[in-house]
């Protein structure tokens, strides 16, 4: 069996701050294969973005410190790679899309120039993406990169792609800019795409278009995707799998249908219950009492225990290990039951 595209094992990350060392990722396990779209959900500050940034190690160190664990990309541990090797992976093995399309494009350069630069950088390690013979001159490579940039803009649904190459970012709408950023992330033909809240800053109608586009690209390019979001609706609509994070842990993970239909972790259930439905009366939004624990002095045992309605004395001792609760479905709760005895 070949190694999975991405396999994160027991990743621990701490961030130094003036108040002390915050243990922000506390043993993350995640495996992503080609063709899978993993939704990474959780409330603000649970570590989902940090997990995304950790994969291509974009966090400045210090304050970030990878204390333990491994991040394997097709069998190679990226945490052990020297900087130049890591640099080679960015853009052409791992693509990234960030939240705010208005601030993630450089305002001073034409989008064509920005796309061409990314394509040329990726083509240094992956010459195949440019349609030109080996040993081609700089101007020839540039021309090929420009053609690729136009094709990518067309692929992400930007009309008049050839003309729009010469436009500046402020001449695009928010949704169009996110399309440009998707084109930029995909121009190096990455195997893994990390999309950090790609639709949060967009109108709801545009959100759906962008998600559909992302889904189409995944099918076209046979990528694995990690979609970071706090919106369970987005997950249900777009993802094949989901991992729910709480305070630096993945508390439940599995195929989307299984997790949404039969959430086993109390936190997942609380998240699901907080989604307003048609029957929710005005002023009756259900939230989750309490707030995320302080990660400098985290609670002992299960980090969710202080807010958990089912917590018992046993929850306060020892971090709960994931319990298998279904096919590929696991929940990190000592009360979770194996499928044979689960109360379905």
């Amino acid at each position, binding site marked *: 069996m070949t190694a999975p595209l991405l396999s994160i094992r027991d990743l621990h990350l701490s961030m130094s701050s003036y108040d002390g060392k915050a243990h922000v990722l506390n043993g993350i396990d995640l495996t992503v294969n080609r063709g899978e779209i993993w939704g990474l959900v959780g409330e603000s500050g649970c570590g989902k973005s940090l997990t995304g940034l950790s994969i291509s190690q974009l966090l400045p160190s210090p304050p970030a410190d990878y204390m333990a664990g491994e991040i394997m990309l097709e069998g190679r541990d990226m945490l052990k790679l020297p900087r130049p090797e890591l640099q080679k992976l*960015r*853009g*052409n093995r791992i693509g*990234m899309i960030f939240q705010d399309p208005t601030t993630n494009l450089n305002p001073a350069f034409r989008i064509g120039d920005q796309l061409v630069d990314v394509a040329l*950088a990726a083509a240094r390690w992956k010459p195949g993406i440019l349609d030109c013979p080996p040993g081609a001159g700089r101007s020839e490579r540039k021309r090929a990169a420009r053609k690729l940039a136009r094709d990518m803009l067309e692929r992400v649904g930007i009309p008049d792609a050839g003309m729009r190459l010469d436009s*500046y970012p402020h001449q695009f709408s928010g949704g169009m800019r996110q399309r440009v950023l998707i084109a930029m992330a995909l121009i190096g033909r990455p195997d893994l795409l990390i999309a950090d809240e790609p639709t949060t800053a967009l109108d709801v109608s545009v959100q759906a278009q962008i998600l559909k586009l992302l889904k189409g690209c995944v099918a076209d390019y046979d990528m694995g995707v990690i979609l970071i979001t706090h919106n369970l609706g987005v997950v249900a609509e777009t993802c094949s799998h989901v991992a729910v994070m709480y305070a630096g842990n993945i508390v439940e993970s599995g195929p989307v249908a299984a997790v949404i239909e039969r959430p086993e972790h109390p936190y997942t259930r609380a998240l699901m219950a907080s989604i307003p439905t048609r029957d929710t009366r005005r002023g009756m939004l259900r939230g989750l009492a309490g707030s995320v624990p302080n990660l400098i002095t985290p609670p002992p045992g299960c980090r969710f225990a202080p807010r958990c309605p089912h917590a018992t004395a046993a929850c306060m001792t020892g971090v709960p290990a994931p319990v298998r609760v279904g096919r590929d479905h696991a929940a990190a709760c000592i009360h979770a039951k194996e499928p044979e005895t689960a109360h379905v």
Partner: protein
Amino acid sequence: MLQFIVRRVLLLIPVLVGLTVIMFAIARILPGDPVALAAGPNATQAEIEALTVEYGLDQPVWVQYGHYVSGLLQGDLGTSLLTRRPVAADIAAYLPATLELVFAAMAIAVLLGIPLGLVTAVWRNRWPDYLSQVAAIGAISMPRFFLGLLLQLCFAMWLAWLPLGGRLPIIVIPPPSVTGFLTIDALIAGDWTAFTTALSHLAMPAIAMSLSPLATIMRMMRSSTIEVMQQDYVMTARALGLPRRQIITKYVARNAVSATLTVIGLYFGWLLGGTVLVETVFDWPGLGLYATKAIVSQDMMPVIGVALVIGLLFVLANLVIDLLYGVINPKVRYS
């Protein structure tokens, strides 16, 4: 674009009117009799009165002002009491020397300040940064004339590498005047000896004038670079594998320079108005030296003329800076 330039040039009019009014008022408030000073110690009362009438100084101040403005519209800046020559001709003779000095100083400041600012931002909180910070505080806090004296002591007296002062010794034949800048005129004429001589005279005063803007531009560039490096698009560029060198020299630099441009424009005016001390120390035959002599002898026409020309140049420099904003920042260009 054209509309923008026209509007900005029209804005010059109130600036210039304000300048002339203020300068005229100051000229009248100052005590003493400039005509008596100009006529010399042996002049009789009748001669002084004749001169006063000749220069129209016996008339009410608003009539004088009206005469001045109507002359100004024809390019006449009045006549100097001291040299008895038209002020416009004097300024035309002295201005190129000052401009050459200011441009040279600005070139040093910009060409060194911007890369140094980038480098210190990238290496921030390490030794190159600390070193530059100390040097910058020293450069900003040291008076220019004192720095000039130090440079003279070091490079002219001890090392004897550079001449003490002046612009071009009499023994060197000046190149035919095209731009009025001796260094550039010498290059155009292909006169290598004149070029190196002119350059060696220009070096010290230009360096003395450049250090303060250099330090400011460097610090400004450093802080705006640090700010730009924290922008989301820099993270995106890193995440998508652009080489670090390209990110800094291309993507970050262009965004960081636009904040620094304002300072460059302001410093240009500051240097123009502040050449007096450096020109005095280095005996540089420019506007500053000319204006100082005029002020000492209460010869107000040259003073007003110099103030006008410097004001005009300052506004023009800032117009150029504003146009450069558009080159660097497309958002400004289109709105």
